[in-house]
Protein backbone atom coordinates (compact mmCIF):
# COMPACT_ATOMS: atom_id res chain seq x y z
CA UNK A 1 0.00 0.00 0.00
CA UNK A 2 1.62 3.21 -1.12
CA UNK A 3 0.78 6.06 1.15
CA UNK A 4 1.49 9.60 0.12
CA UNK A 5 0.38 11.21 3.30
CA UNK A 6 1.90 14.57 3.14
CA UNK A 7 2.53 15.28 -0.48
CA UNK A 8 1.03 18.70 -0.29
CA UNK A 9 3.11 20.07 -3.13
CA UNK A 10 1.17 17.94 -5.57
CA UNK A 11 -2.22 19.14 -4.42
CA UNK A 12 -1.57 22.84 -4.19
CA UNK A 13 -2.05 24.16 -7.66
CA UNK A 14 -1.86 27.70 -8.83
CA UNK A 15 -5.16 29.40 -8.33
CA UNK A 16 -6.83 26.39 -6.85
CA UNK A 17 -9.52 27.37 -4.39
CA UNK A 18 -8.54 26.86 -0.81
CA UNK A 19 -10.31 24.48 1.48
CA UNK A 20 -10.69 20.80 1.99
CA UNK A 21 -9.24 19.85 -1.39
CA UNK A 22 -5.84 21.24 -0.48
CA UNK A 23 -5.66 19.19 2.68
CA UNK A 24 -3.00 16.62 1.99
CA UNK A 25 -4.08 13.89 4.35
CA UNK A 26 -7.42 13.59 2.64
CA UNK A 27 -5.63 12.03 -0.28
CA UNK A 28 -4.56 9.29 2.07
CA UNK A 29 -6.19 5.92 2.09
CA UNK A 30 -5.72 3.73 5.10
CA UNK A 31 -6.11 0.03 4.57
CA UNK A 32 -9.50 -0.80 6.06
CA UNK A 33 -8.35 -4.23 7.11
CA UNK A 34 -5.42 -2.83 9.07
CA UNK A 35 -7.78 -0.38 10.70
CA UNK A 36 -10.27 -3.10 11.59
CA UNK A 37 -7.52 -5.25 13.09
CA UNK A 38 -6.18 -2.32 15.06
CA UNK A 39 -9.65 -1.62 16.42
CA UNK A 40 -9.76 -5.22 17.58
CA UNK A 41 -6.53 -4.61 19.49
CA UNK A 42 -4.16 -6.42 17.14
CA UNK A 43 -0.64 -5.32 17.98
CA UNK A 44 0.82 -6.02 14.54
CA UNK A 45 -1.82 -3.72 13.08
CA UNK A 46 -0.88 -1.07 15.65
CA UNK A 47 2.69 -1.23 14.51
CA UNK A 48 1.67 -1.06 10.86
CA UNK A 49 -0.27 2.12 11.56
CA UNK A 50 2.64 3.52 13.54
CA UNK A 51 5.05 2.88 10.70
CA UNK A 52 2.70 4.45 8.17
CA UNK A 53 2.10 7.61 10.12
CA UNK A 54 5.37 8.01 11.99
CA UNK A 55 6.98 10.43 9.52
CA UNK A 56 3.96 12.63 8.75
CA UNK A 57 3.05 12.89 12.43
CA UNK A 58 6.62 13.73 13.37
CA UNK A 59 6.93 16.25 10.55
CA UNK A 60 3.75 18.04 11.54
CA UNK A 61 4.86 18.05 15.18
CA UNK A 62 8.27 19.33 14.14
CA UNK A 63 6.76 22.24 12.21
CA UNK A 64 4.44 23.24 15.00
CA UNK A 65 6.77 22.89 17.99
CA UNK A 66 10.21 24.26 18.67
CA UNK A 67 12.63 21.42 19.05
CA UNK A 68 13.11 17.83 17.89
CA UNK A 69 12.63 16.79 21.49
CA UNK A 70 9.19 18.45 21.61
CA UNK A 71 8.28 16.75 18.35
CA UNK A 72 9.36 13.36 19.69
CA UNK A 73 7.16 13.79 22.75
CA UNK A 74 4.22 14.87 20.61
CA UNK A 75 4.78 11.86 18.35
CA UNK A 76 4.60 9.43 21.26
CA UNK A 77 1.67 11.12 22.97
CA UNK A 78 -0.24 11.22 19.69
CA UNK A 79 0.16 7.51 18.99
CA UNK A 80 -0.64 6.58 22.53
CA UNK A 81 -3.89 8.51 22.38
CA UNK A 82 -4.80 7.40 18.86
CA UNK A 83 -4.11 3.71 19.45
CA UNK A 84 -5.68 3.72 22.88
CA UNK A 85 -8.91 5.22 21.60
CA UNK A 86 -8.95 3.68 18.13
CA UNK A 87 -11.93 1.55 19.08
CA UNK A 88 -13.99 4.71 19.28
CA UNK A 89 -12.93 5.93 15.82
CA UNK A 90 -16.11 5.66 13.78
CA UNK A 91 -14.69 6.46 10.39
CA UNK A 92 -16.59 9.65 9.67
CA UNK A 93 -13.77 11.64 8.17
CA UNK A 94 -10.48 10.06 7.29
CA UNK A 95 -8.30 8.24 9.75
CA UNK A 96 -5.34 10.32 8.57
CA UNK A 97 -7.33 13.46 9.24
CA UNK A 98 -8.07 12.29 12.76
CA UNK A 99 -4.41 11.49 13.48
CA UNK A 100 -3.43 14.87 12.14
CA UNK A 101 -5.96 16.60 14.35
CA UNK A 102 -4.69 14.79 17.43
CA UNK A 103 -1.09 15.66 16.50
CA UNK A 104 -1.93 19.34 16.02
CA UNK A 105 -3.81 19.48 19.28
CA UNK A 106 -0.97 17.84 21.24
CA UNK A 107 1.55 20.19 19.64
CA UNK A 108 -0.54 23.28 20.32
CA UNK A 109 -1.00 22.19 23.92
CA UNK A 110 2.77 21.93 24.24
CA UNK A 111 3.22 25.45 22.84
CA UNK A 112 0.61 26.80 25.24
CA UNK A 113 2.27 25.32 28.29
CA UNK A 114 5.73 26.45 27.19
CA UNK A 115 4.66 30.01 26.52
CA UNK A 116 5.23 31.15 30.06
CA UNK A 117 8.58 29.44 30.41
CA UNK A 118 10.75 30.72 27.58
CA UNK A 119 10.82 34.01 25.73
CA UNK A 120 9.82 32.58 22.40
CA UNK A 121 11.38 35.07 20.01
CA UNK A 122 14.87 34.48 21.38
CA UNK A 123 14.54 30.77 21.25
CA UNK A 124 13.15 30.78 17.74
CA UNK A 125 16.08 32.83 16.48
CA UNK A 126 18.53 30.55 18.22
CA UNK A 127 16.85 27.53 16.78
CA UNK A 128 16.82 28.96 13.29
CA UNK A 129 20.53 29.68 13.48
CA UNK A 130 21.12 26.16 14.70
CA UNK A 131 19.15 24.77 11.77
CA UNK A 132 21.01 26.94 9.28
CA UNK A 133 24.38 25.99 10.77
CA UNK A 134 23.44 22.33 10.78
CA UNK A 135 22.29 22.28 7.18
CA UNK A 136 25.37 24.12 6.05
CA UNK A 137 27.74 22.12 8.25
CA UNK A 138 28.41 25.24 10.23
CA UNK A 139 30.19 26.95 7.34
CA UNK A 140 28.12 29.48 5.47
CA UNK A 141 24.74 30.64 6.57
CA UNK A 142 21.71 31.05 4.38
CA UNK A 143 23.29 32.74 1.32
CA UNK A 144 24.64 29.63 -0.42
CA UNK A 145 21.95 27.23 0.76
CA UNK A 146 19.20 26.09 -1.61
CA UNK A 147 16.10 28.24 -1.53
CA UNK A 148 13.91 25.88 0.44
CA UNK A 149 16.41 25.80 3.31
CA UNK A 150 16.12 29.54 3.54
CA UNK A 151 12.40 29.10 3.86
CA UNK A 152 12.75 26.37 6.47
CA UNK A 153 15.06 28.48 8.59
CA UNK A 154 12.79 31.49 8.19
CA UNK A 155 9.78 29.40 9.22
CA UNK A 156 11.60 28.22 12.33
CA UNK A 157 12.29 31.85 13.24
CA UNK A 158 8.65 32.83 13.32
CA UNK A 159 6.98 33.34 16.68
CA UNK A 160 5.17 30.19 17.80
CA UNK A 161 1.63 31.27 17.10
CA UNK A 162 2.37 32.79 13.70
CA UNK A 163 4.32 29.69 12.70
CA UNK A 164 1.57 27.34 13.82
CA UNK A 165 -1.11 29.34 12.04
CA UNK A 166 0.72 29.65 8.72
CA UNK A 167 1.49 25.94 8.75
CA UNK A 168 -1.99 24.82 9.71
CA UNK A 169 -3.60 27.16 7.20
CA UNK A 170 -1.28 27.28 4.19
CA UNK A 171 -0.02 23.70 4.26
CA UNK A 172 -2.50 21.61 6.21
CA UNK A 173 -5.46 23.45 4.72
CA UNK A 174 -7.37 24.16 7.92
CA UNK A 175 -9.78 27.10 7.63
CA UNK A 176 -9.47 30.16 9.84
CA UNK A 177 -12.57 29.02 11.71
CA UNK A 178 -11.05 25.60 12.35
CA UNK A 179 -7.76 27.12 13.51
CA UNK A 180 -9.65 29.54 15.74
CA UNK A 181 -11.36 26.60 17.42
CA UNK A 182 -8.04 24.79 17.85
CA UNK A 183 -6.20 27.69 19.46
CA UNK A 184 -9.17 29.05 21.37
CA UNK A 185 -9.26 32.40 19.55
CA UNK A 186 -11.32 34.08 16.86
CA UNK A 187 -11.10 33.65 13.10
CA UNK A 188 -9.89 37.22 12.74
CA UNK A 189 -7.07 36.43 15.15
CA UNK A 190 -6.10 33.55 12.87
CA UNK A 191 -6.23 35.84 9.82
CA UNK A 192 -4.06 38.48 11.41
CA UNK A 193 -1.55 35.86 12.57
CA UNK A 194 -1.38 34.50 9.03
CA UNK A 195 -0.68 37.99 7.69
CA UNK A 196 1.90 38.52 10.41
CA UNK A 197 3.62 35.27 9.51
CA UNK A 198 3.79 36.21 5.83
CA UNK A 199 5.06 39.69 6.63
CA UNK A 200 7.82 38.25 8.81
CA UNK A 201 8.74 35.62 6.25
CA UNK A 202 9.05 38.30 3.64
CA UNK A 203 11.35 40.37 5.86
CA UNK A 204 13.56 37.36 6.38
CA UNK A 205 13.55 36.07 2.81
CA UNK A 206 13.85 39.42 1.05
CA UNK A 207 15.42 41.73 3.60
CA UNK A 208 16.07 44.52 1.09
CA UNK A 209 12.64 44.74 -0.50
CA UNK A 210 9.84 47.00 0.57
CA UNK A 211 6.83 45.61 2.38
CA UNK A 212 3.70 44.60 0.48
CA UNK A 213 1.73 47.33 -1.21
CA UNK A 214 -0.39 49.21 1.24
Amino acid at each position, binding site marked *: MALNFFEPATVLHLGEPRGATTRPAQTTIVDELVLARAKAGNEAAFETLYRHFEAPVYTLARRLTRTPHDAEDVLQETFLEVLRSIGRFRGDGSFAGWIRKVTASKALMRLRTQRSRVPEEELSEELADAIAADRNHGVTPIATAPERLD*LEAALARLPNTARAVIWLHDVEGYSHDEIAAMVGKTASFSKSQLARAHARLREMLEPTSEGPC*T
Partner: protein
Amino acid sequence: MHLSLEHLLAVRDGEATADAAGHAASCPECGAEIERLRTIQRGLAALPEDRPEQDFWPGVRAALAAHRNRRHWLAAGWAAAGLAAAFTLTIGVRGGLEAWHEAKLSRETGELVAASQQLEQQLRTYGSAGRVVSGRTAGTIVQIEDRIALVDAQLSRAGSDRVPSQDVLSLWQERVRLLDALVSVQTSRTAYVGL
Protein backbone atom coordinates in the same frame (compact mmCIF):
# COMPACT_ATOMS: atom_id res chain seq x y z
CA MET B 1 -5.06 52.22 -2.97
CA HIS B 2 -3.50 48.74 -3.00
CA LEU B 3 -4.72 45.81 -0.92
CA SER B 4 -3.46 45.07 2.58
CA LEU B 5 -1.62 41.82 3.22
CA GLU B 6 -4.69 40.37 4.91
CA HIS B 7 -6.82 41.19 1.86
CA LEU B 8 -4.18 39.82 -0.50
CA LEU B 9 -4.26 36.53 1.43
CA ALA B 10 -8.05 36.49 1.29
CA VAL B 11 -7.90 36.90 -2.49
CA ARG B 12 -5.32 34.13 -2.75
CA ASP B 13 -7.57 31.87 -0.69
CA GLY B 14 -10.75 32.70 -2.60
CA GLU B 15 -12.32 34.32 0.45
CA ALA B 16 -12.09 37.98 -0.51
CA THR B 17 -14.89 40.50 -0.91
CA ALA B 18 -15.96 41.36 -4.44
CA ASP B 19 -14.24 44.75 -4.14
CA ALA B 20 -10.90 43.26 -3.13
CA ALA B 21 -11.10 40.53 -5.77
CA GLY B 22 -11.95 43.16 -8.38
CA HIS B 23 -8.97 45.28 -7.46
CA ALA B 24 -6.63 42.29 -7.50
CA ALA B 25 -7.84 41.29 -10.95
CA SER B 26 -7.10 44.72 -12.42
CA CYS B 27 -3.95 45.70 -10.49
CA PRO B 28 -0.70 44.14 -11.72
CA GLU B 29 1.16 44.99 -8.50
CA CYS B 30 -1.37 43.31 -6.22
CA GLY B 31 -1.56 40.43 -8.69
CA ALA B 32 2.19 39.98 -8.36
CA GLU B 33 1.94 40.06 -4.56
CA ILE B 34 -0.69 37.34 -4.61
CA GLU B 35 1.49 35.25 -6.87
CA ARG B 36 4.36 35.72 -4.43
CA LEU B 37 2.13 34.51 -1.56
CA ARG B 38 1.25 31.42 -3.59
CA THR B 39 4.94 30.76 -4.18
CA ILE B 40 5.62 30.89 -0.43
CA GLN B 41 2.70 28.53 0.17
CA ARG B 42 4.03 26.06 -2.40
CA GLY B 43 7.51 26.38 -0.93
CA LEU B 44 6.26 25.54 2.55
CA ALA B 45 4.27 22.60 1.28
CA ALA B 46 7.35 21.30 -0.52
CA LEU B 47 9.60 21.28 2.54
CA PRO B 48 11.02 17.80 3.03
CA GLU B 49 9.40 15.32 5.37
CA ASP B 50 11.24 14.69 8.61
CA ARG B 51 11.75 11.47 10.53
CA PRO B 52 12.54 11.01 14.21
CA GLU B 53 16.14 10.03 14.81
CA GLN B 54 15.27 7.03 16.89
CA ASP B 55 12.53 4.42 16.91
CA PHE B 56 9.85 5.32 19.43
CA TRP B 57 7.60 2.36 18.69
CA PRO B 58 8.97 0.17 21.52
CA GLY B 59 8.17 2.90 24.05
CA VAL B 60 4.70 3.51 22.64
CA ARG B 61 3.98 -0.23 22.60
CA ALA B 62 5.11 -0.62 26.20
CA ALA B 63 3.02 2.35 27.28
CA LEU B 64 0.00 0.91 25.48
CA ALA B 65 0.46 -2.41 27.21
CA ALA B 66 0.65 -0.61 30.51
CA HIS B 67 -2.59 1.17 29.68
CA ARG B 68 -4.33 -2.05 28.87
CA ASN B 69 -3.86 -2.96 32.51
CA ARG B 70 -5.67 0.18 33.40
CA ARG B 71 -4.12 2.21 36.16
CA HIS B 72 -1.46 -0.44 36.48
CA TRP B 73 0.91 1.69 38.45
CA LEU B 74 -1.76 2.53 40.97
CA ALA B 75 -3.37 -0.86 41.30
CA ALA B 76 -0.09 -2.69 41.59
CA GLY B 77 1.10 -0.37 44.30
CA TRP B 78 4.57 0.99 44.69
CA ALA B 79 5.21 1.06 40.99
CA ALA B 80 8.00 3.48 41.70
CA ALA B 81 9.70 0.96 43.94
CA GLY B 82 9.52 -1.69 41.22
CA LEU B 83 11.03 0.59 38.63
CA ALA B 84 13.73 1.74 40.98
CA ALA B 85 14.70 -1.66 42.39
CA ALA B 86 17.63 -2.15 40.07
CA PHE B 87 19.79 0.58 41.50
CA THR B 88 18.69 1.24 45.01
CA LEU B 89 21.85 0.00 46.65
CA THR B 90 24.78 1.47 44.92
CA ILE B 91 27.92 2.13 46.84
CA GLY B 92 30.82 3.44 44.82
CA VAL B 93 33.46 0.77 44.46
CA ARG B 94 35.77 3.17 42.73
CA GLY B 95 37.20 6.04 44.66
CA GLY B 96 37.37 9.75 44.15
CA LEU B 97 35.20 12.09 42.20
CA GLU B 98 33.50 9.43 40.13
CA ALA B 99 32.24 7.58 43.18
CA TRP B 100 31.08 10.85 44.66
CA HIS B 101 29.20 11.67 41.46
CA GLU B 102 27.64 8.21 41.37
CA ALA B 103 26.59 8.49 44.98
CA LYS B 104 25.07 11.89 44.29
CA LEU B 105 23.09 10.59 41.33
CA SER B 106 21.91 7.62 43.37
CA ARG B 107 20.89 9.82 46.27
CA GLU B 108 19.01 12.31 44.08
CA THR B 109 17.28 9.55 42.18
CA GLY B 110 16.41 7.87 45.45
CA GLU B 111 14.78 11.05 46.67
CA LEU B 112 12.70 11.25 43.51
CA VAL B 113 11.67 7.61 43.85
CA ALA B 114 10.53 8.32 47.39
CA ALA B 115 8.60 11.37 46.20
CA SER B 116 6.98 9.23 43.50
CA GLN B 117 5.89 6.69 46.08
CA GLN B 118 4.40 9.35 48.28
CA LEU B 119 2.44 10.86 45.39
CA GLU B 120 1.20 7.45 44.30
CA GLN B 121 -0.01 6.86 47.84
CA GLN B 122 -1.94 10.13 47.73
CA LEU B 123 -3.47 9.18 44.40
CA ARG B 124 -4.67 5.87 45.76
CA THR B 125 -6.40 7.75 48.53
CA TYR B 126 -8.19 10.14 46.16
CA GLY B 127 -8.88 7.42 43.63
CA SER B 128 -10.87 5.41 46.16
CA ALA B 129 -13.08 8.36 47.06
CA GLY B 130 -15.18 7.60 43.99
CA ARG B 131 -16.02 11.19 43.21
CA VAL B 132 -17.62 12.21 39.93
CA VAL B 133 -15.14 13.57 37.40
CA SER B 134 -16.15 15.93 34.60
CA GLY B 135 -15.39 14.99 31.01
CA ARG B 136 -12.76 17.65 30.69
CA THR B 137 -11.01 16.64 33.88
CA ALA B 138 -11.15 13.01 32.87
CA GLY B 139 -9.46 13.93 29.60
CA THR B 140 -6.68 15.71 31.45
CA ILE B 141 -6.21 12.78 33.81
CA VAL B 142 -5.92 10.35 30.91
CA GLN B 143 -3.40 12.61 29.18
CA ILE B 144 -1.21 12.79 32.24
CA GLU B 145 -1.50 9.04 32.73
CA ASP B 146 -0.42 8.58 29.12
CA ARG B 147 2.69 10.59 29.74
CA ILE B 148 3.49 8.73 32.93
CA ALA B 149 3.10 5.47 31.04
CA LEU B 150 5.61 6.72 28.46
CA VAL B 151 8.08 7.71 31.17
CA ASP B 152 7.63 4.33 32.87
CA ALA B 153 8.27 2.55 29.59
CA GLN B 154 11.55 4.42 29.23
CA LEU B 155 12.45 3.75 32.85
CA SER B 156 11.88 0.05 32.60
CA ARG B 157 14.17 -0.09 29.59
CA ALA B 158 16.83 2.02 31.27
CA GLY B 159 16.54 0.55 34.74
CA SER B 160 18.99 -2.33 34.55
CA ASP B 161 22.13 -0.32 35.28
CA ARG B 162 23.45 -0.38 38.81
CA VAL B 163 24.04 3.33 38.83
CA PRO B 164 21.29 5.63 37.55
CA SER B 165 22.41 7.82 34.68
CA GLN B 166 21.63 11.48 34.27
CA ASP B 167 18.91 10.44 31.81
CA VAL B 168 17.30 8.20 34.40
CA LEU B 169 17.43 11.02 36.91
CA SER B 170 15.67 13.30 34.40
CA LEU B 171 13.01 10.66 33.81
CA TRP B 172 12.33 10.45 37.52
CA GLN B 173 12.11 14.22 37.71
CA GLU B 174 9.56 14.15 34.89
CA ARG B 175 7.66 11.35 36.63
CA VAL B 176 7.41 13.30 39.88
CA ARG B 177 6.31 16.41 38.00
CA LEU B 178 3.55 14.47 36.22
CA LEU B 179 2.38 12.70 39.38
CA ASP B 180 2.30 16.05 41.08
CA ALA B 181 0.13 17.44 38.27
CA LEU B 182 -2.13 14.40 38.59
CA VAL B 183 -2.54 14.99 42.31
CA SER B 184 -3.40 18.64 41.61
CA VAL B 185 -6.04 17.62 39.10
CA GLN B 186 -7.50 15.08 41.50
CA THR B 187 -7.61 17.46 44.42
CA SER B 188 -8.63 20.69 42.74
CA ARG B 189 -10.61 19.20 39.87
CA THR B 190 -9.09 21.73 37.54
CA ALA B 191 -9.05 20.54 33.99
CA TYR B 192 -6.04 22.61 33.06
CA VAL B 193 -2.67 22.15 34.68
CA GLY B 194 0.58 23.56 33.39
CA LEU B 195 2.20 20.46 32.00
